[in-house]
């Protein structure tokens, strides 16, 4: 099965390129088949339509790699808490990999 990944970003937050590299690294390391859609969010209307709580946001089969409850939909940079407690503007590779593993387990073995 191919995992559907949606990568949402706002241009004003400077680390989206690094986040996208981290996503591709995680996909490679997990060995999953994935289709990645990159979506640029430019307006508050876009943010509401995409339920965008900050840049970058990565959805794996529609599930946020770091589910966040109660955050408003808006143009902002997003804070992630890593496994060691540090705050970062990027999800950790492990957070992305864990989301990919969850999606793979839900949808069955990859075609690779």
């Amino acid at each position, binding site marked *: 099965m191919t995992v559907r990944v949606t990568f949402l970003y706002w241009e*004003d*937050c*400077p680390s989206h390129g690094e986040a996208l590299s981290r996503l591709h690294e995680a996909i490679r390391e997990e060995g999953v088949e994935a289709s990645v859609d990159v979506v640029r969010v430019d307006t508050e209307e876009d943010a509401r339509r995409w339920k965008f709580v900050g840049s970058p946001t990565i959805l794996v089969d529609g599930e946020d790699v770091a589910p966040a409850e109660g955050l408003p939909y808006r143009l*902002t*940079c*997003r*804070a*992630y808490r890593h496994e060691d407690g*540090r*705050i*970062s*503007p*990027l999800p950790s590779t492990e957070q992305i990999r864990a989301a990919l593993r969850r999606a793979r387990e839900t949808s069955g073995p990859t075609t690779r």
Partner: protein
Amino acid sequence: MANLKTGDPAIPFRLPGVDGREHALDDYADRQAVVVIFSCNHCPYVRAWEDRMVAIQRDYAPRGVQFLVISSNDPEQYPEDSFDRMRERAREKGYNFPYLYDGTQEVARAYGAERTPEVFVFDRDRRLRYHGAIDDHYEDPNKVRRHYLREALDAVLEGRQPEVAETPPVGCTIKWRPASQVAR
């Protein structure tokens, strides 16, 4: 693009702090160096770096270095950047420097600041000696290779021009008030 270039004089300001006092640049005329940092509460880059801000102020205070940290963000759009929330953040994180509120955004505009955090280091004569980022790795303090702010302070305190005088500030954009509100 900052309005100040290396060697330019600091632009005076007087702003309310979360400690209930007003703070002016001139209040710190006896310090060997003053570091003005545009910051805020909500930005994850600030949150990633703020422990290092506290540590650097702690380490350099005995050598006469004073940080003045300013939030200019519009709290109407970003309520977590309100003055009350600034007061909470300063208490929670043990800020050891004045945390000032630039409600009119005039100070940020005068300096030409664009990001949070964005650092301006002024020497004994209040001339700009360094502008830019705190260091070269916002995410992990253990992976920092260039400690730009510390290096700049070491140079300034020894009367030298920092080897690196300018780096691109990395962080969130300052959240400006809508033009309609500024005009009021």
